[in-house]
């Protein structure tokens, strides 16, 4: 049986989805719902970057929101204390997140499964507490006010976020076509087998950690300039939980799944806002059900319903490559 995961059809679907989101501002004028959508795109960025680690490299990190917070506070501190603008602060956020990701990747690269998850969870919480308690620098829970971008207009910000997501998607596609992508997938499936076949597992796991951290850092930095506030809440474990739910529900290890999951969960969260945090119980139950019965999430379900010949391109393309 073939699969949709990371097939050319999967990538096309991801771009089609981003294209569809680009049409939303033409029909939806509500500033509120555009804001919800922008927040969904922020989570989609985190979801894509967490998927690079968990779904593609097999590293179950609990730190995506922590790296977003690193990016957010890098630009926030630069702007608050030094008056440096967002267009310098956002790339700086990516660089600082990448450096922290590289460090964490090196420290934790011998850990797998629950041990890696627990270590990154501890890192996230420690970082959040440090940020929340460094009041003279960060103003603690009050947060740092940071300047807006693009005049604060929702539609241009939405297109900026979409552009960044599209760039992530292109980078993911190029990565997967390269030998680096092949090695990451091999590490995910069998780390011992990969190292025995000459893959420098230490180097490629660190690379995945660094890239994912940089991606989350950009997302966090962009998001605080949209919110015009950097607060320690960005690094809450709850946020990481949401990112994991989004990827698992949408389809871990697929290109489109994290986008679908992020948008669906974010819109559903807003729609269910009145029931309070109880809606998280629904997401938790969904994650358990999807993890148990539909390992490729909604994308896997879609692949089962559609003709394999249309959606499952990898085996066919491999046969062509051999011919």
């Amino acid at each position, binding site marked *: *049986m*073939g*699969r949709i*995961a990371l097939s050319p059809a999967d990538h096309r679907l991801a771009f089609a989805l981003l294209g569809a989101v680009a049409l939303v501002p033409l029909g939806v004028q509500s500033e509120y719902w555009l804001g919800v959508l922008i927040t969904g795109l922020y989570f989609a960025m985190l979801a894509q970057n967490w998927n690079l680690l968990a779904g593609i490299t097999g590293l179950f990190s609990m730190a995506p929101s922590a790296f977003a917070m690193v990016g957010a506070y890098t630009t926030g501190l630069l702007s608050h204390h030094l008056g440096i603008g967002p267009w310098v602060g956002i790339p700086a956020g990516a660089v600082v997140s990448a450096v922290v990701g590289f460090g964490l990747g090196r420290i934790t690269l011998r850990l797998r499964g629950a041990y890696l998850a627990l270590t990154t969870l501890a890192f996230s919480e420690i970082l959040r507490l440090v940020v929340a308690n460094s009041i003279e620098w960060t103003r603690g829970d009050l947060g740092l006010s940071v300047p807006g971008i693009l005049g604060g207009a929702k539609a241009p910000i939405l297109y900026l976020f979409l552009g960044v997501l599209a760039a992530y998607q292109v980078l993911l596609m190029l990565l997967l076509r390269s*030998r680096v992508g*092949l*090695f990451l*997938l*091999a590490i*995910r*499936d*069998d780390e*011992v*087998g*990969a*190292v*025995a*076949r*000459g*893959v*420098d*597992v*230490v180097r490629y796991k660190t690379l995945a950690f660094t890239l994912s951290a940089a991606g989350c850092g950009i997302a966090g930095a962009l998001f605080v300039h949209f919110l015009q506030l950097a607060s320690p809440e960005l690094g809450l474990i709850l946020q990481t939980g949401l990112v994991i739910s989004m990827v698992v529900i949408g389809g871990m*290890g697929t290109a489109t799944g994290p986008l679908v999951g992020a948008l669906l969960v974010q819109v559903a969260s807003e729609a269910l806002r009145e029931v309070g945090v109880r809606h998280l119980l629904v997401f938790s139950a969904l994650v358990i059900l999807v993890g148990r019965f539909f390992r490729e999430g909604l994308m896997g379900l879609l692949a089962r319903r559609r003709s394999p010949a249309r959606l499952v391109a*990898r*085996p*066919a*393309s*491999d*046969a062509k*490559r*051999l011919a």
Partner: protein
Amino acid sequence: MSAALLALSGLRKSFGGILAVADVTLAIAPGELVGLIGPNGSGKTTLLNLITGFYPPEHGRVRLLDRDVSGQPPDAIFRAGLTRMFQQVRVFRRLTALQNLEVAGRAAGLSAAAARQRAGRLLERLGLAPHAGDEVGALSGGQQKLVEFGGCFMSEPRLVVLDEPFAAIHPTVKQVMVDVIGERHAAGQAFLVVSHDIPAIMRLCPRTVCMNAGAVIADGPTEQVMTDRGVVEAYLGGHAR
């Protein structure tokens, strides 16, 4: 006399109080096909783990083509020219058969096109060409073993180490492996084959090494080793006649 391809000197490894490999000294010449036998727990797989970099030796050296590779990681030893097939099948289940082979080729520095071409040829030889585009997790256990076996030849290694390649597979799959080993050996490829399949070792390997309790107890022409009193006693117990 040609220089040794693989030279082990005084290799030792213990786990807690148990000496798994006890000062093993052994050499394999270029192009040699050597069988490694011994009862369960005799230290064969531990020795392979020391050779291929999965365990660092407590004592002793591993030299590959006159280069000291002791304690180097497995990927560095792969690049130095030594590939390995595991006792428990190790494949990339969600990658296709073609991609499984390409991993080793790309890691060895082949271009994408060269790796694909070589992988295609190997799959063809192993009778797996119709499954080139199939996910390996969906293949049978024997086919998965063949995929892993094929991966050993992607980098044109100097020495291929096979750990129980014939265990739990259909005779037709075994025959494919035996034929490929024979062909490659005839072309100058060196092998170290660990197996409990004594008839296969007798048919394939001109030289056999036998281990017991972590030490080499016999090393020489296969027929001679098979009739060695120490080897017979190791397999059948101390009172064998």
